[in-house]
């Protein structure tokens, strides 16, 4: 049977089974990725550390540690609490600040990673975000900006920007004004109606939405009878949040026209496919990297098998396939 056979259906079936699992590429905001697997911000440092464990060029891309204008030490320890299916962290955006990222971290990364990287940016005021993005804007290495609006708004009463559609839109618009790079807004799941926030960001000029950030959670130490986390509460992530994350990805993908990056509890190639069926164009993997440093490499190499199992030839074609 040749590629030019006229027995169309039979041929295309045979073709499908020959190509099943091979075509993992996706396009995220105009940039082609070899595959949709992206280590999530805060779980992969600035990337080069993982290059001693495996060749990180096998990844679609990765999102670097949440970067702020000024260097930050973050919150007091303990910053980590275990949960049955995940963990709580209150790292509090420890990072060396945007200038050090550009001058020190990214050059180290350039030696080991040949692809565009996703820059994760945080801030506590609109000005923070704008100034940080201005610093990162000139860097060719950065392919996408991922704006994390889950931080408390210090000028707006302490609620996270991401819990209010107006504040979310304001940040989006302000950042949009200072960048030509694809602009992805990362949403917090701790809201009543996630679609409302996503739509506000889309209207304000976002090129994509990523979700979910961590869920506000807590554990108490039975020995000390005090909260485990020094700051009382923290962000819950890992497989336990997957059903909520998947639901929100599904809802947002229906509500907006821009691409959605899905994450929250993803830890297998099957989870990646499920997120894409729900509507994700690309999929991030966070906590899984912490318990298995090879998690993303393993997911990338397992993806063809999982695609074949599900009868998927071209991964990009299944995006949103479970949408009614």
């Amino acid at each position, binding site marked *: 049977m040749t590629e030019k056979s006229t027995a169309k259906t039979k041929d295309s079936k045979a073709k499908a089974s020959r190509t099943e699992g091979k075509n993992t590429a996706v396009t995220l905001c105009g940039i082609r990725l070899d595959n949709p697997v992206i280590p999530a911000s*805060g*779980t*992969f*440092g600035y990337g080069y*550390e*993982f290059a*001693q*464990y495996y060749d990180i060029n096998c990844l679609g891309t990765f999102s670097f*540690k949440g970067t702020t204008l000024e260097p930050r*030490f*973050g919150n007091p*320890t*303990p*910053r*980590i*609490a*275990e*949960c*049955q*299916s*995940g*963990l709580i*962290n209150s*790292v509090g955006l*420890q990072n060396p600040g945007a200038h050090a990222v550009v001058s020190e971290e990214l050059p180290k990364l350039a030696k080991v990673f040949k692809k565009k990287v996703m820059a994760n940016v945080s801030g506590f005021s609109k000005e923070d975000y704008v100034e940080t993005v201005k610093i990162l804007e000139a860097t060719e290495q950065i392919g996408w900006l991922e704006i994390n609006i889950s931080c408390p708004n210090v000028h707006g009463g302490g609620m996270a920007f991401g819990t209010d559609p107006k504040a979310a839109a304001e940040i989006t618009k302000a950042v949009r004004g200072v960048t030509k790079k694809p602009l992805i807004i990362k949403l917090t799941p701790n809201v009543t109606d996630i679609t409302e926030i996503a739509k506000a960001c889309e209207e304000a000029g976002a090129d994509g939405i990523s979700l979910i950030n961590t869920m506000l959670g807590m554990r108490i130490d039975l020995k000390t009878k005090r909260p*485990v986390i020094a700051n009382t509460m923290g962000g819950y992530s*890992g*497989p336990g949040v997957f059903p909520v994350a998947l639901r929100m990805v599904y809802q947002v993908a229906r509500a907006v026209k821009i691409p959605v990056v899905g994450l929250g509890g993803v830890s297998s190639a099957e989870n990646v496919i499920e997120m894409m069926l729900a509507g994700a164009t690309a999929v991030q993997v966070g906590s899984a*990297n*912490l*318990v*298995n*440093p*090879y998690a993303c490499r393993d997911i990338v190499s397992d993806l063809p098998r999982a695609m074949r199992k599900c009868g998927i030839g071209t991964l990009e074609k299944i995006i949103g396939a479970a949408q009614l």
Partner: protein
Amino acid sequence: MTCPQIGKKANLGPVPKLEKGCVMKKLDAIITENKEVAKNYLKMVLEVSGGLGGEEVLPGQFVNIEIPGLYLRRPISVCNYEAGKLTLVYKPVGSGTEHMAGMKPGEKLDLLMPLGHGFDPAKAGERPVLIGGGAGSAPLYLLARTIKAANPKAQITVLLGFNEKAEVLLEAEFRALGADVTVYTVDGSYGTKGFAADGLDSLTQGAADAVGYTYFYACGPMPMFRAIEAKAKGDGEYSFEERMGCGFGACMGCSHKTKNGYKRICKDGPVLSRGEILWD
């Protein structure tokens, strides 16, 4: 090759070879032994297959163990490592360590190892003192062995503290290395009544150099560290514990502020030198 955890080429003679094998690996290990060695403490011996050669773990480094059914790994110090045989000494205190205590020879564990910046045996000098409290005694064993291998003439003093006689760990093993061992028990049921840090007083008293030792290494609970801080006259280093997300430097979950900026306990530690620590 320079070891990234140590930051310089160490030269301590043939055993352990510090110049290689410092990059963490994910390894399968088979339990060959797992039994109580003292009240509240178990010793687990594992056969580590593939990847690591005989001598590539540094004293004070640790392993991070995947526990079936639990999400985060559990960090346990290397008590000894020789030719693929890994010895851990641990105290069951919660879900993870209790699960370990129930495991049988032949069962497998998934380990990340070796992890962390351990003790610096090169600083030992001729008369180092090693101070251990409870499970904190465990990593001092590989340290003592390493010091001895590099400098057979070193006079190692080991001060060990436990709650009571039944808990005493590793005393014979340290003696077998030729160390001068003093055991302290809180209730006086064995050795000297009191705390391991008390041993520093006797070392200092009448010491020619008014310090009494060339360098100290400490591992144990925080109250022990504070007692050492109050008594110690010379330089040394401490091995810290912190709740960890990853154990290999990726998550920033374990950062402590030091005089030299922040340090991740899992990667830049667990051993920090006296001079850099901020005692809050």
